[in-house]
């Protein structure tokens, strides 16, 4: 009974790039949050009842603050409504949810921290907290709107890919590591499924330990409704079938345990 839905206070909102917003909120969820976890954000619109899961981009434990960086997916959406929140407003959230990245395992390793598209934000707090031998941040954007770039540069060696080639490698994050001839002995990644699929294949071919953060539509966000499952190689102990709950057992999985 220690958890509850709370009215988080909006501290600031900023547009980072076209349709990409950064929101700082004050919430109890910050106290125990880890990189790779997410919060369920709710609208004030009575017609939109389900949560919008948003990854945690930055954590300020002492200040009880969380940063969320999100994309407005269209007109008439919940994220569109979030983008209209102003400092002083409140926004209902539940969190922190899920298991974060097991970044402790990176100690002494040469690591890829890979993010693509709107999977970029959670990589920031991961980069900030991770202690490792070599921190190679490889992030992919659509175009020159390389949001969070400055923050990344302060937290590791940054490699950028853009779909239109306007900054860094033209292509995706895989193209970037190929072009730059990079390698790693551990990978942490978040991004669209095709990107994760490529990374998973890459990692498995090379036997690299790889953690990927998955997405799925959610209803409860806490593991009770079985909406958000992903396929697993082995029978899962909880579900007793080849399924795991992304919200509860993930969103971060070892690449070899899931099928994409």
């Amino acid at each position, binding site marked *: 009974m220690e*958890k509850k*839905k709370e009215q988080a206070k909006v501290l600031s909102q900023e547009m980072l790039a076209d349709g990409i917003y950064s929101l700082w909120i004050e919430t109890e969820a910050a106290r125990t949050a880890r990189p790779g976890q997410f919060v369920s954000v709710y609208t004030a619109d009575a017609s939109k009842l*389900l949560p919008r899961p948003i990854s945690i981009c930055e954590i300020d434990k002492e200040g009880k603050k969380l940063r969320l960086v999100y994309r407005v997916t269209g007109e008439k959406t919940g994220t569109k409504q979030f983008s209209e929140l102003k400092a002083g407003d409140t926004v209902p959230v539940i969190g922190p949810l899920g298991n974060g990245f097991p970044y402790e395992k990176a100690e002494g390793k040469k690591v890829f921290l890979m993010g693509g598209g709107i999977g970029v934000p959670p990589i920031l707090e991961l980069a900030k907290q991770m202690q490792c031998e070599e921190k190679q941040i490889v992030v992919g954007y659509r175009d020159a709107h390389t949001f969070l770039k400055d923050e990344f540069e302060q937290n590791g060696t940054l490699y950028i890919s853009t779909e239109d080639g306007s900054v860094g490698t033209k292509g995706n994050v895989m193209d970037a590591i190929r072009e730059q001839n990079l390698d790693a002995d551990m990978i942490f990644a978040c991004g669209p499924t095709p990107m994760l699929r490529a990374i998973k294949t890459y990692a498995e071919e090379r036997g690299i330990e790889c953690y990927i953060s998955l997405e799925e539509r959610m*209803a409860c966000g806490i*593991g009770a*409704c*079985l909406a958000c499952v992903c396929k697993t190689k082995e029978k899962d102990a909880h579900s007793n*079938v080849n399924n795991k709950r992304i919200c509860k057992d993930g969103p971060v999985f070892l690449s070899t345990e899931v099928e994409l």
Partner: protein
Amino acid sequence: MDMKVNIAGVEWKNPVTVASGTFGSGEEFGEFVDLNRLGAVTTKGVANVPWPGNPTPRVAEVYGGMMNAIGLQNPGIDLFCKRDIPFLKKYDTKIIVNVCGHAPEEYLAVVERLADEPIDMMEINISCPNVNAGFLAFGQDAKHVEELTAQIKKIAKQPIIMKLTPNVTDITEIAKAAEAGGADALSLINTLTGMKIDINRRTFAVANKTGGVSGPVVHPIAVRMVYQTAQAVNIPIIGMGGIATPEDAIEMILAGASAVSVGTANFYNPNATIEIIDGIEAYMKKNGFESVKDMVGIVK
């Protein structure tokens, strides 16, 4: 003032349980809600063997509600008995196990397996696809409902709640069939079958094409069906469908439900059950009701 209700011989401490499938077996919500406060916990549907469920996406948001096509994913009755029942036994609340199956034999296997388990009631989900009757569910055919109920009653050791689907022309016909088959109680409504299309991707919003609509949007339809059913049968009714506030629950009770289940509301307000229990109590106090049963079905 008495919040207790007696449903088919089982005394609940208050008239509020959770709708099957929206609360797992209570473990996850136990972090948000004191399970001891609930009249009963109704578990996610369980079958004789594990079911993998449907492909994803399994849920979609609809105006004022949601749509789901989970496909009754469940770990099977064996793991359920080993893990979920002992978990729930730690709490001072009644345990209602929701049972699903594709064919009578599958239901019967679960009911039999549960006969000697320390559970209080069983709820039979007859909205599952009936492999023997094409695309219809068991619950859409009165004859099937009566037969299945009678078969279950023959072997069940706990009171049986038959859970009715709203996707029928005449809910009273199905309710009467369940009563004729020997059901101890009824629960309604299950989800209304709906569909959502993503006009940009030009595809269905849930992989199963159709899904069950639930949440506030289904409430008026649920109230109507509970009311009609209460006029038609003499067994208690557990009312559900879009209950999100104390007012919704009271409405259902006034329409004829002896108890209520909270479903989709848990997803966006994990504290909904507690607010509803407290709110019913406050309403009773304000309006001078001594006992919950004095409110049941008094609006006629």
